[in-house]
């Protein structure tokens, strides 16, 4: 069963790409006593190893710690903060949102002119992010600079919350759900060498994973993700990609990889045998750390399994705990047959 407390902690944690330390600290504490060895590499990836002395194929479970966010790149004379996006964010979801800035989590709001003053043309189009700003209530540049130096990272201020019996909302479910599942799986016993890799900088080009499987190179890797669900009213059925409450999402192909055909068949047969619901990712879009890991050294057999999440890369995303539990269960059962 899901460790809601861990998911909540991870979802609320600060972790814009390149600034994953809060998330890393939580995960390090979580896995330390279950791993033989815990390392942080040059790019900030957290690597937990178990059973390294055992013979057999090494299996890697991996998930990325970072989330999309913003970074302050200019301060106006009147104290407003201009920013750039870190990772893919739809400009249209930015205005009117609360944010937290930097280590000391300074609160701010992404402002926009009141509707009374908008022209008919204004109302028709989204304001591009380069024209938006964060208001921290500073009276001028000097004051703002003291509180928020240039290059400070920014996250959405979103609190993890349960909104129905099995549905939760919060930020960064892509990929803190994967982090939680990987951490939970590390706690179990296996008779093969296991490596759990929590990567950095996924959202800005799978950067952490590009080096994360170089020192220790697995034979098999499972990337655990929170993935796009577009089961929304206006979306045509064949473009919904995945649906929530339909079980773990098994990727056959995304824009980066075709997952290993034989391993994937094994995974599906485990799901069928254990009566765990599953679905396929039905739009070939998005890429994951699997892309990098697959091409490490002599090549790695990769799988990607995900919890379907609505509204990823926005300030609030939504998932169903049954999908989470079934993803945890499916990967857990699969590891038993390796």
């Amino acid at each position, binding site marked *: 069963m899901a460790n809601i407390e861990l998911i909540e902690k991870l979802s609320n944690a600060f972790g814009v790409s390149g600034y994953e330390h809060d998330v890393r600290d939580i995960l390090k504490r979580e896995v330390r006593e279950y791993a033989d060895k815990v390392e942080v590499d040059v790019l900030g990836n957290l690597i937990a190893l178990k059973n390294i002395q055992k013979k057999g194929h090494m299996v890697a479970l991996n998930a990325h710690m970072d989330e999309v966010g913003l970074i302050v790149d200019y301060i106006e004379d009147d104290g407003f903060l201009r920013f750039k996006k870190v990772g893919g964010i739809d400009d249209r979801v930015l205005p009117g949102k609360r944010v937290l800035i930097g280590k000391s989590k300074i609160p701010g709001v992404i402002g926009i002119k009141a509707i009374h003053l908008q022209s008919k043309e204004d109302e028709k189009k989204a304001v591009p992010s380069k024209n938006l700003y964060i208001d921290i209530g500073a009276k001028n540049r000097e004051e703002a600079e003291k509180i928020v130096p240039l290059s400070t990272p920014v996250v959405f201020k979103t609190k993890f919350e349960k909104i129905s019996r099995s549905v939760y909302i919060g930020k960064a479910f892509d990929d803190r759900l994967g982090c939680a599942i990987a951490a939970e799986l590390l706690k179990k016993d296996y008779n093969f060498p296991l490596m759990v890799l929590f990567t950095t900088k996924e959202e800005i080009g799978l950067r952490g994973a590009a080096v994360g499987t170089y020192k220790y190179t697995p034979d098999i890797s499972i990337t655990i993700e929170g993935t796009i669900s577009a089961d929304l009213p206006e979306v045509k059925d064949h473009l919904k990609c995945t649906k929530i409450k339909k079980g773990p999402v098994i990727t*056959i*192909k995304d824009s980066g990889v075709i997952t290993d055909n034989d391993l994937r068949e094994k995974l599906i047969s485990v799901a069928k045998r254990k009566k765990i619901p599953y679905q396929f990712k039905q*739009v*070939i879009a998005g890429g994951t750390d699997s892309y990098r890991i*697959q*091409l490490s*050294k*002599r*090549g790695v*057999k990769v799988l990607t399994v995900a919890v379907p999440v609505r509204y990823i890369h926005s300030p609030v995303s939504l998932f169903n705990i049954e999908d989470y539990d079934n993803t945890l269960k499916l990967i857990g059962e699969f590891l038993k047959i390796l």
Partner: protein
Amino acid sequence: MNENFLRNLVFAFGPSSKEKAVKKVITQELGKVSDRISEDKFGNLVVHIKGEGPKLMVAAHLDQIGVMVTDVDKNGFLRLGEVGRIRKSFLIGQKLIFENGVEGFVYYEDKKSPWEAKEPKMENLFVDIGAEDKGTARKLVDIGTQGVYKPSFYSFRSRVTAPALDDRIGCYILAELIKGINKKKLAYDFYGVFTVQEEIGVKGAKVSSYEITPDFGIAIDVTDAGDMPETSALSLSLGKGPAIKVMDRGMIASKSVKNNLIATAEKSKIPYQLEVITAGTTDAYAMQVTKSGVETGALSISTRYIHTPGETLDLNDVLNAVKLLKKFIEK
């Protein structure tokens, strides 16, 4: 010219990650002359012929572009995703064949433009496999089932038109090269690698060259011809010799390999062309940046209509490519 072998290569089903049938055709062909065929853990087919001298890796990719079923609707129509850079406007009106032999016809949502498809997008195309409902269709194909253009093979004198000549023609050249190797004359420690998953990101070549760590690399692939009516200005023509790559979108060929290929062609009086192109790339792109670097070049066959069902090339270029590579690897 071993036309039967080429025909078998073209008819073998083999989109990225499903190259098994192509490997079988090659293994059978090479089985007659070589017992040094192995498959690496990524699925590349490797033929190692030990020789005195530096390590040379010659690569050609097994896979072809294709499609993947992403959805089956209640009326039994399939929706598709692309495997490699398929050209949507050429997909409409084509027959596809799926990995289990099921065939289908590609059409488009024609509400907006009933006679001709305008700016076709993958999400607006569908396939009719003759199934009347979802249940029937799901018995024939599943989400993830891969398909390719239904193969055909037409030849007239030295010209050939067929889908998947990208890069079965490279496989043909590499296999013929291997068959003709005289170990006594071999100037290299030779690795012929038939690679997987080139069309979705030059993957097989990347991991294979890590494994082999060659000193020199050559990829054999197709490249765009520029000898059709009103096409973009490209100096490559069919029948004027294999093209020695100078540059493509992914790489500038290493001077040593390029110059050595040119010198070999000049010396042996084999016609050749020089290829400078800004579109596309090959396995050579991945090989060149392996570990501390590999001196890498490429030999291309000028081909018209690449990534359509009508890829067209000239077999004289193919014969000359085999001849050139043979001279290249000999002392």
